[in-house]
């Protein structure tokens, strides 16, 4: 199955040039637990009214303060791992990762090194599976703010975010194009939202995306000797653009006989390009060692099963079920499964409608109504939606000759649109439907009008 809308470049942007793009991703996701990762401070850095209000000795790294892991955050990490088809490790531990930065209170970040909670999963996409190397849990850092205080330029630190649980998902270098990355990320995002473990809001930085991009001759089978990491990306589209840009840039260098530098680059939104930030020739030495403040974590099969039982039906399964159970089209099923809440809403409407045998609507009609809704579904209860459908149905029953007359009238008035359509710009059809509906003062069934228009336009 390949949705048309994706175009044909999904498999590999560069195949035709004899090059293959190799992308692996690191994705950071802030978990939406009530408390922070290692203390009981409120986990709400975006809702905080002032800097440094959600802090305590633990997340400020005061002398003598000790971390106590958040059970919920561990459960949610395992939940995510299970949803991504990972093997859950029966024995995991937290490690200290050392580096110096003013937003890092302890001089080290508590993370996981060689014993993460989850390993070896995968996400299926139309352009090929993306292997999940590992999913591990760590803590977020504080945030630096550059400001002028009393005429002096200073850097301030806000620790509201310090210690927020952060999941890192690392993929295998299985991604072959910008489009492939985008569709993979969309799917990952959807799963995370389904699990209800994070808002995964990229604007706010609760989901952060870092592609590692390199290019090799398609005939080569080994990984390239370098990789370029791109930072500061806050949308799936920008990931796609960054990968497309890097692919072209790196092929350009390779064509000249140069090997691209191993470096970190930043994405520049205005120009859809990347610029060099720092060279990464030598790998940093983080001096990882097991955090002696946190005993290793053992997960029993029973515990893992219990966590697994909290996983809701995931998008792919739900979509297939909707197609089978309700006879929805692939596209309609995809659309109503976009968000878990939407799918649930759809099912409520269907069962409501089925309960009223006299006025039963087909699930396809309900799905269509939901997909074309003007606002958020939360604004309208399933009952209200069904009531509205009943009302519309009454309004739609009008004299077919009235429709024909309006269509003829509209076509004679909209000369330009008619010409456009005849020149192949079929998208004007929906515009014409709208015009006819206006003529009919909102009445009439759009499908019927559309059919009538097509007939007349030839």
């Amino acid at each position: 199955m390949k949705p048309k809308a994706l175009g044909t470049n999904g498999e590999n942007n560069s195949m035709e040039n004899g090059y293959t793009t190799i992308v692996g991703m690191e994705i950071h996701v802030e978990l939406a637990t009530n408390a922070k990762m290692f203390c009981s401070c409120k986990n709400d850095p975006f809702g905080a009214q002032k800097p440094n209000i959600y802090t305590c000795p633990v997340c400020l790294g005061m002398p003598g303060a000790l971390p106590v892991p958040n059970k919920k955050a561990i459960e949610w990490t395992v939940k995510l791992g299970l949803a991504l088809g990972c093997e859950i490790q029966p024995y995991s531990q937290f490690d200290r990762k050392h580096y110096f930065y003013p937003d890092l209170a302890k001089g080290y970040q508590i993370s996981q090194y060689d014993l993460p909670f989850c390993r070896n999963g995968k996400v299926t996409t139309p352009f090929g599976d993306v292997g999940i190397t590992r999913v591990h849990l760590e803590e977020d850092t504080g945030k630096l703010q550059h400001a002028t205080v009393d005429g002096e330029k200073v850097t301030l630190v806000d620790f509201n975010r310090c210690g927020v649980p952060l999941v890192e998902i690392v993929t295998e270098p299985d991604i072959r194009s910008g489009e492939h990355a985008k569709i993979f990320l969309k799917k990952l995002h959807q799963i995370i939202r389904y699990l209800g473990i994070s808002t995964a809001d990229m604007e706010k930085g609760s989901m952060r995306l870092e592609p590692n991009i390199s290019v090799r001759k398609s005939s080569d089978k080994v990984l390239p000797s370098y990789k370029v990491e791109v930072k500061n990306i806050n949308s799936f589209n920008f990931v796609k653009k960054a990968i497309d840009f890097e692919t072209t840039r790196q092929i350009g260098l390779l064509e000249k006989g140069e090997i691209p530098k191993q470096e970190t680059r930043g994405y520049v939104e205005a120009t859809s390009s990347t610029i060099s930030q720092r060279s990464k020739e030598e790998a940093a030495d983080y001096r990882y060692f097991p955090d002696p403040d946190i005993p290793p974590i053992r997960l029993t099969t029973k515990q893992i099963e219990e966590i697994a039982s909290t996983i809701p039906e995931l998008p792919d399964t739900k979509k297939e079920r909707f197609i089978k159970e309700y006879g929805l089209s692939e596209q309609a099923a995809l659309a109503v499964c976009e968000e878990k809440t939407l799918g649930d809403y759809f099912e409520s409407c269907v069962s409501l409608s089925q309960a009223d045998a006299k006025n039963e609507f087909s699930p396809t009609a309900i799905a269509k109504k939901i997909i074309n809704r003007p606002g958020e579904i939360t604004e309208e209860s399933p009952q209200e939606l069904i009531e509205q459908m009943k009302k519309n149905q009454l309004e739609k029953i009008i004299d077919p000759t009235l429709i024909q007359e309006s269509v003829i009238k509209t076509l004679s008035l909209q000369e330009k649109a008619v010409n456009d359509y005849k020149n192949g710009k079929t998208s004007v059809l929906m515009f014409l439907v709208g015009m006819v509906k206006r003529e009919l003062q909102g009445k009439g069934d759009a499908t019927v009008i559309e059919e009538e228009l097509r007939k007349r336009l030839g």
Partner: protein
Amino acid sequence: MLHKLTLSSAIKKLKKKEISHTELYTDIETQIGKINPELNIYLSLDKQAIKKAEKLIDKPLAGVPIAIKDNFLTRELPTTASSIVLKDFMSAYESTVTDRLQKEGGVIIGKTNMDAWAHGSSTETSDFGTTKNPRNQDYSPGGSSGGSAAAVAANVCISAMGSETAGSIRQPASWCGVVGLKPTYGRVSRYGVVAMASSTDSPGPIGKTVEDTAILLEQIEGHDSFDATTPEKEPSRVAEHMKKGVAGMRIGICYSDHANLKNKKVTEQIFAAGKIFERHGAQVSIVPVSDTVEKGKILKHDYAIGVYTVIQRSEVSSNLARYDGIRYGVDRSNLGPEAKRRIMLGTFTLSKGYADKYYIKAQQVRQLYLENFRQLFQDFDVLISPTTPSYAEYIGAGKDNPMFGELEDMLLEPTSISGLPGISVPCYRDEKTNLYLGMNIVSAWWQEEKMIRAAYLYETESAWNEWRK
């Protein structure tokens, strides 16, 4: 002479109203005024202590004055860990140990000097001067809890709190002729204790008698929701078990054949102790030293020095990273030479390409010690050995000798890296120098009651505890 009261008798006398808080505190404060300027025991004192004490008469500790090592965070007195880097640092929160002590009726009379960041065995690395041994001022009180051991020996408090990573409670207790108890790792919360080596740090009491340390342990022990390394365990009930004697106990004498200990007074005293235990119905035998893990033998301590040095330095380099000069007001160039040495060595032993050779190797050897002790405690209830190879060293003996502490603590390091509990009791006093020797009694994990029984019996049956006379 109220300052000479033991904790147990002070509590009894206060509760029976035989003495008043005013009398007790006036006496101790007079003693502090007389002795502290010379010995340099306290870094800070609470002038309001007496006022707090009077309200606590109904609590288990009845408002007795307790000295606290300066690495316990306290809200009302500064906490410096004897380093200029934390000079004048006032903590926003209270350590679990001092919090529990105060809730049970203890009063923090002052904070005691220590080796800076607990790096040392003599208090000589303190940025605020060396503490002198109250038994003989030419000598060091030991360390790193040297100030707390000296405070008890000098009667400038009723009891004290120390912390041990490897020897830091028991070694100064031995040198000052007092009792020092290091609990099982995880029995007492580390929350709010400036971290040295997190995998072995154990807060514990220093007292005048075995009973005093038992009373204090019961007030501070137990699971703490702020320390993930404190499991939910049965309380030690050491005070209850203390007087049960040693009849039927299997006691092993360790390290008596070591070259540094052969024919020494301290070894002689350990054998004498063995005789006392035998007389009271214990089965006493010598545990031979071996080069490898062997049943019925104790793995020689030499490896433990290396293991401990690598692990402790590695953890120190990590734990001190937060004193980066950004938030505590004092630049890290103010760290003393010992702290700098440890940070450098620890950074090295954790570095890529070296961690396998040092840190990971050390952890592997540590497992061998754990295995060895697991086996030994199938055959023995307690193990005894000298606490330190000899008497207190001269002040200045540790200067320019970065391995000074490790050599002094060599008999304690195997049990420390294994997380075992131990107690040091005075076992000899040299009449000429007035210096003491200590005996170390170790029991299996979470079985403090066994070592307490042996320690209490020995204290009762020997002549070396001055406060019991």
